[in-house]
């Protein structure tokens, strides 16, 4: 088997790849980091309604400096705008949207995803110096679909798609799909199934970077 050359997706390309798969009309919550970038890659004509935990539904693009409303931030504490049709609500009402199963999609980052859909993304050990969970557990447990955007491996090459998470869990069996810099994989009852890979990458090469067993989708 010949090793072929391939180019991993950078953060922007990964965000753009995810944005392709979000249909018009979905209500979507984006976690901080790469997930937040996804909004920039949804064409304005395709109406996707973005929600933030802090009670904003219908978030628009980041405003120009001159147009900043200092009272309007997202859950990552960045200035945002509101689209026509957007609305504000208090935190309990905002989490009713999340916890009541009303979001079509949530996209989060993660440290690890297990082949059964377990996700670990909030703490690196059971006794973190100062742990912080935010809305991650609510989102992971509550959204209709949970997609993960992350690097396929850690900086030092350890796999993030694992048979079993080693970090404390955010939620059990919650992830439906993982978008990495190398591939897109569905979580199925049979484990990870590869939907597509970056050009030039082989399944064997991807498997070598993955702890869990993977297979091509049918």
């Amino acid at each position, binding site marked *: 088997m010949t090793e072929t050359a391939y180019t991993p997706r950078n953060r922007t390309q990964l965000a753009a790849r995810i944005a392709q798969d979000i249909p018009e009309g979905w209500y979507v919550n984006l976690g901080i980091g790469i997930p937040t970038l996804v909004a920039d890659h949804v064409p304005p004509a395709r109406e996707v309604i973005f929600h*933030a*935990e*802090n*009670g*904003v539904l219908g978030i628009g693009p980041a405003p120009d400096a001159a147009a900043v*409303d*200092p*009272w*309007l*931030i*997202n*859950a990552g*504490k960045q*200035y945002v705008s*509101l689209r026509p049709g957007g609305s*504000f*609500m*208090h*935190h*309990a009402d*905002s*989490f009713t949207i*999340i*916890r009541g199963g009303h979001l079509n999609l949530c996209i989060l980052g993660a440290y690890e995803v297990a082949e059964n859909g377990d996700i670990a993304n909030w*703490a690196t050990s*059971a006794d973190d*110096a*100062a*742990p*912080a*969970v*935010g*809305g*991650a*557990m*609510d989102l992971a*447990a*509550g959204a209709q679909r949970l997609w993960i955007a992350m690097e396929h491996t850690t900086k030092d090459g350890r796999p993030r798609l694992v048979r079993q998470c080693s970090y*404390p*869990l*955010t*939620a*059990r069996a919650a992830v439906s799909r993982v978008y990495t810099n190398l591939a897109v994989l569905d979580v199925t009852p049979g484990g990870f199934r590869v939907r597509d890979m970056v050009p030039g990458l082989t399944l064997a090469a991807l498997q070598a970077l993955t702890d869990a067993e993977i297979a091509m989708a049918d």
Partner: protein
Amino acid sequence: MIDKFVNSVASALAGIQDGSTILLGGFGAVGQANQLIEGLVEAGVRDLTVVANNAGFGTAGLAHLLRAGRVRRLICSFPRIPGSTVFETLYRDGKIELELVPQGTLAERMRAAGAGIPAFYTATSAGTLLAEGKESREINGRTYVLEHALHGDVALVEAWRADRWGNLTYRASGRNFNPVVAMAARLTIVQTQHVAELGTLDPESIATPGIYVNRVVHLPHGDPVL
């Protein structure tokens, strides 16, 4: 005539005891009643339990209260202060207790306190470290965790407009936890940017009706700074 306005931070905060549980509105720098929290530092109350989404922002308000050593216990979803290690240091040194609560569970537990619901089941945190030691049960094949109402002695709220009955509106994402904490405390104290004549707030869009408010002080402090 009902008039919930008081004319100083000190009178707004009168009677708050050491050992109180204080609920704070606000999310990041937006909608947190920083002048009232500064008043708490000034008033010298201590041994507080503070419930807040974040551990403060910048150096004023909650960050100041923490630095001054007045907080015994923090109930919080995201105990970080951007650019500050005040909380981390206190926590590492064992000088503050932390109860980490998922953000939605935090909001719902306070809403439950306001709504007369002593406990409820939620899927959030099921099967995780944060559910350890908590009762859980299967309902329709899914595992749920039992969470209890979170009551406050005092809530500190920042409003955009307030009238003398204590009716409140907020501005944009300044709403956040404010209406929730207002429901959940025995004594709800508000700082407002603007004063509205009674009857000028739209009855269709009052976000916190005055029944949840005890005292209001007019503090036009300007926009939040990230």
